[in-house]
């Protein structure tokens, strides 16, 4: 029987095809496993981040409440008294009120800004004083 069988020559193309198919299946399988692992790993990562976010939000709410307490007028007054700062609000007679700047002020600003910097000297261009300083007397 054996002697009657004709030995076929090895077909490289067929082998290559088979190898490619096997390789593709192996790659697909491994990729699937890898992707699955990645999914689970990222899931864990997301879970950790969620826990961190929750903790940060909690802390944020706590700090917001603390900040509100520190900013409250009662607390600020108490601290002023504690440190003897002698702070009082300025009276109306101690405040200089300036009129709302008009159109000439709007025009003046870009002109000042557009003046090229004194490049040669390396110094910035002088900015014109457009408004008086608000003076608060004690």
């Amino acid at each position, binding site marked *: 029987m054996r002697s009657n069988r004709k030995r076929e020559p090895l077909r490289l193309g067929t082998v290559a095809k088979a190898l490619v198919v096997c390789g593709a299946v192996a790659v697909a399988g491994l990729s699937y496993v890898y992707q699955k692992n990645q999914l689970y790993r990222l899931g864990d990562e997301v879970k950790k981040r969620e826990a961190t976010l929750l903790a940060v939000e909690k802390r944020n709410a706590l700090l917001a409440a603390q900040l509100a307490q520190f900013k409250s007028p009662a607390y600020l007054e108490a601290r002023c008294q504690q440190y003897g700062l002698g702070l009082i609000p300025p009276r*109306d007679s101690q405040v200089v009120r300036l009129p709302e700047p008009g159109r000439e002020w709007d025009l003046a600003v870009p002109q000042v800004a557009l003046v090229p910097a004194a490049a040669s000297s390396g110094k910035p261009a002088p900015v014109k004083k457009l408004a008086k300083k608000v003076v608060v007397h004690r």
Partner: protein
Amino acid sequence: MTLNRQQTRVLLVLCGVSLLFTAFGMRLVQLQVWQRDELARLAAANRERVVHRQGRRGKILDANGNLLANSQSVRIVVADPSITVSNATTIARQLSPLLGMDEPTLVAKLSGAGRYVRLKQKVDEETATKIRQFKFKGLVLEDQFVRSYPNGALGSHVIGFVNHEQVGVQGIEAAMDNYLQGRAGYETIERDRKGREIRVLREERLSPRDGYDVVLTVDQVIQHIAEVELDKAMAEHRPQAGVVIVSRPQTGEILAMTSRPTFNLNEPGQAAADARRNRCISDVAEPGSTFKIVVCAGALNEGRVTLADRFNCENGAFLYAGRVLHDAHPYGVLTVEEILYHSSNIGAAKIALQMGPAKVAEYVRRFGFGRKTGVVLPGEVSGIAHPLNRWTKLSITRIPMGHEIAATPLQMLMAMNAIANGGQLLKPMLIRSVCEPGGGPVLKYAPVVVETPITAQTSRWMTTALRKVPTPQGTAPRAAVPGYDVAGKTGTAQKIENGQYVRKYYSSFIGYLPADDPQISILVSLDDPAGGTYYGGSVAGPVFREVARKVAQYLGLPAQHAESETQVAKL
């Protein structure tokens, strides 16, 4: 054909194997087909869990975005007694100092019936971390939101508070509960062998949503100023109660609203019910002379009188309908303007007589008396303004001086605002906007004109007269604010107890400034001040002055005239 022994054995083995596989097959059919639903449910219940997530309750902010109320996450320590029963004594010994509970109580809870027992609520994060480190089986730390009010008692009657279920029961917390409440969500999670969540298998069914933030018109600095000055007045005059409201007459915005006694928002249960009541909207009283503004404004508006018209004030005693009406001081002939700033009861009664009862009743209604102002806060009352058919013959002389009528402090302030702002009765505004959590507004509130009881011209005439009240000629020289033109009206109303007028008084002052272009209006009312002084100008006037001076300073309102050195020195 006979089978030999070997073939028989093979046949038997085959039959046995066939039977075995048939049995396995039957069992599989039973598990996979007949009992499929039930077993699938049991399996899912074993690995799946529905987790409820609470949406955070929205914040309450003042007009400048300062936090007045927010929700903070704390922990609840929960035990499963079916697991903790075996180790109850050890767990109780360790937890007792951390939770501040005695050991026998803890042991009883840890070894009791059921599978869910709350050991302690509102546990802070630090304590929770310590408890977690013990790794006791059957002990769980659950999340819980609690309401926090960083300013304690500041604005307590306006802000209100929530109950244990985080549902608003008073103030803005109750009025805006639908917006403030977050929406709870839930999701299905799957757990691994150790009970940890497998994140990738999480199925979110309904995401939780945080509640909306509510921005008030109240300014916490102005609120503080009002409360400090009211506290000073409470200490000085020892009244039973006190009220201060600050508003913007042009828009009806409430900048501050406070009443005494008060309570700490973080411990509302510790305060008496009386202290939790917002007297600005829930208490009615006869307003007294402040009500003269309604009758005089009505008469001027109808053209029945002018400011220069003169009335005989009968030297302090006017007999009408068999009863004598008195003035605090005897006056002869007074103009309408003088009647207002001297606060003559007889003069006001004669102006009302000239108007006629129907017109008086009409203006009482048009100024908003006898009905709610529509402020957003719960618990507002309408006050008492009898219809014309229930008036007695005396009513026409009593109502102009603020008797036979009852109003809330807020109603009185809104009526004064109508005079200050050119004649528009506005709905009081307490809420500026409703915002997305940490985002932009979804709802904005605008001033609402309820009615226009008087014309702008009448408003100017009234202001002319009311400007003289806080002067040495008027009834409230102590209400004058250095540097500013103030218009206002005093009120001193006798209280009624058991149907009789008694020697107890409501002292009040309502005013606005600057008189020509009013930016703020303030009401001060003290219920039964002790110490012999009870006139509105003497008791409430100075409180008005201090609140007005500080608020004007804070808002940067330009003064109309320079403060004299004497005035500055006094400050």
